[in-house]
């Protein structure tokens, strides 16, 4: 579904994303994890057309989309959400979602109708007439998701939809993401919350300082020394092994 190869982006002297290649197969949920500043959001921004890469390419459903503007990429069925939620504050929840629905529906009535259906799906039915700026953090995260979903995407890029949610809200959000996958939408998500990653993703890519350092099933990568070092500091893996050996003595 998504094929990224050799993607690179520099900001001045900083190598934000360095030669990253990855694949997201159709129908699955793939996660991208890594410490703060690893380049995850920059990678998403390049895939969705918000930032032009310095080199490398992005292919979506077998078609090269590198360098296309965001609205054309969205029209092809690849849509992103934002880490920092970006609601249309003074519009109602229904109107917010309808903007996404308008991608394929020209009529106002049809788009609002579609928006109501989507809101129902993500559990926002009772909030339809609420102004977006009056929503809670959890509500805004859902709205972000609902708007993206209303464009009828084939691939959804979710940038930290769990951040700032309490455990109950997170459980609900995990269910929503699973439901989206079950509707046939491929999901590629950035996530810090490991519990969410473990229960959602089939495959995980780990990014650190712009480079991919590991990939595999969620259980596997948690035991990879490079990943432990990226999160806990240089030498951490060796210390942990030493401690484990110590403890088993």
């Amino acid at each position, binding site marked *: 579904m998504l094929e990224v190869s050799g993607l690179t982006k520099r900001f001045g002297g900083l190598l934000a994303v360095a030669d990253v290649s990855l694949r997201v197969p159709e129908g699955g949920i793939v996660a991208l994890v890594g410490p703060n500043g690893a380049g995850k959001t920059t990678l998403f921004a390049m895939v*969705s057309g918000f930032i032009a890469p310095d080199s490398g390419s992005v292919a979506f459903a077998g078609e090269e989309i590198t360098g296309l503007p965001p609205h054309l990429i969205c029209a092809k069925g690849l849509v992103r959400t934002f880490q920092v939620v970006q609601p249309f504050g003074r519009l109602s929840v229904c109107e917010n979602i309808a*903007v996404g629905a308008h991608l394929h529906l020209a009529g*106002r009535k049809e788009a609002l109708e579609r928006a109501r259906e989507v809101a129902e799906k993500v559990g926002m039915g009772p909030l339809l007439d609420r102004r977006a700026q009056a929503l809670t953090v959890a509500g805004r995260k859902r709205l972000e998701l609902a708007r*993206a979903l209303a*464009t009828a995407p084939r691939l959804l890029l979710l940038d930290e939809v769990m951040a700032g949610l309490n455990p109950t809200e997170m459980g609900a959000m995990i269910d929503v993401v699973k439901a989206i996958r079950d509707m046939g939408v491929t999901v590629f998500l950035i996530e810090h919350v490991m519990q969410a990653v473990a229960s959602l993703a089939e495959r995980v890519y780990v990014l650190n300082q712009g480079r991919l350092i590991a990939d595999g099933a969620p259980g596997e990568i948690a035991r990879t020394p490079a990943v432990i070092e990226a999160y806990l500091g240089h030498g951490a893996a060796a210390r942990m092994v030493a401690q484990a050996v110590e403890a088993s003595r």
Partner: protein
Amino acid sequence: MARLGIAGGMIVALAVPYLIRSDFWLGFLITVLLFAAMGMAWNVLGGYAGQFSFGHAAFFGTGAYASAILHIGFGLNPWLGLAAAAVAGGLVGLVIGTLSFRYGLRGSYFALITLAFAEVLRILANTAEFTGGGVGLYVPLKVGVANLQFESKLGYYYVALGFTVLSLGVGWALERSRLGARLMAIRENEDAARALGVDTFMCKLQAIVISGALTGLGGAFYTQYYLYIDPGIAYGPGVSVEILLVPIIGGLGTVFGPLLGSAVLHGAGELARRLVGDAPGLSLIFYGALLVIMVRFLPEGLMGLVWRLSRRRERAANA
């Protein structure tokens, strides 16, 4: 309920000239209607799409000169001149929009560039031969409906009313269209709109062309009404400010805001003139003060106030 109100309003608007039979007040109403219509034109770009223009005189003046020049120089019928003025205003919108939106100008930068365009056009109109330079252009007096010149203010009143209905109708249709939804999305958050597949450049361009065309129409009406146009009137900052104040006072991004705003602005202006007298430049001071007050205390305009009060009454009724 709303439809009934609109129908009632229309009947009153049609009957008004027979009720008030005063040339002065009819003239006042013509000004109110003209600026309500142009205020809505500004509203399409500023209120719905959130792109504040400080140079709508660029469209107004171009429409005014287009109809005057085509009529005087080429004998074009002034009714067709209205259409030509709309096209000219739309073209100026296309040029300004392409140049500024292509390079991502937003907020105060966009406001400044529109102001600059209007000023450049004013200076050009001042020096060019075919605009009559600083002297301006006089439209020859040939009274007749076919010539869009009327004996009394009555005819102008109905033309202005038609213009206002057209302009508010455009706003009404916009609120119920995909373009309108996209413009409001751009106003609220441009990046989020782009992520949801909105071609923000094309949408903003459509908005400025519609806005420019309607404002150009207003310019042509002005020419036929006063039969005179000069660079200061056509492209001066006074017109730009007056056009943008109307929806800001009335309510940005609303259909009836411009009508309400225009009535209040010109009503208050008339009152000020009577109280203090008419000194040159006084109206600009008055407009400036009004703008500060509105932005500070009523950023949602009078329509926002009406809306808030009706909500409060509703809540009180429910409690």
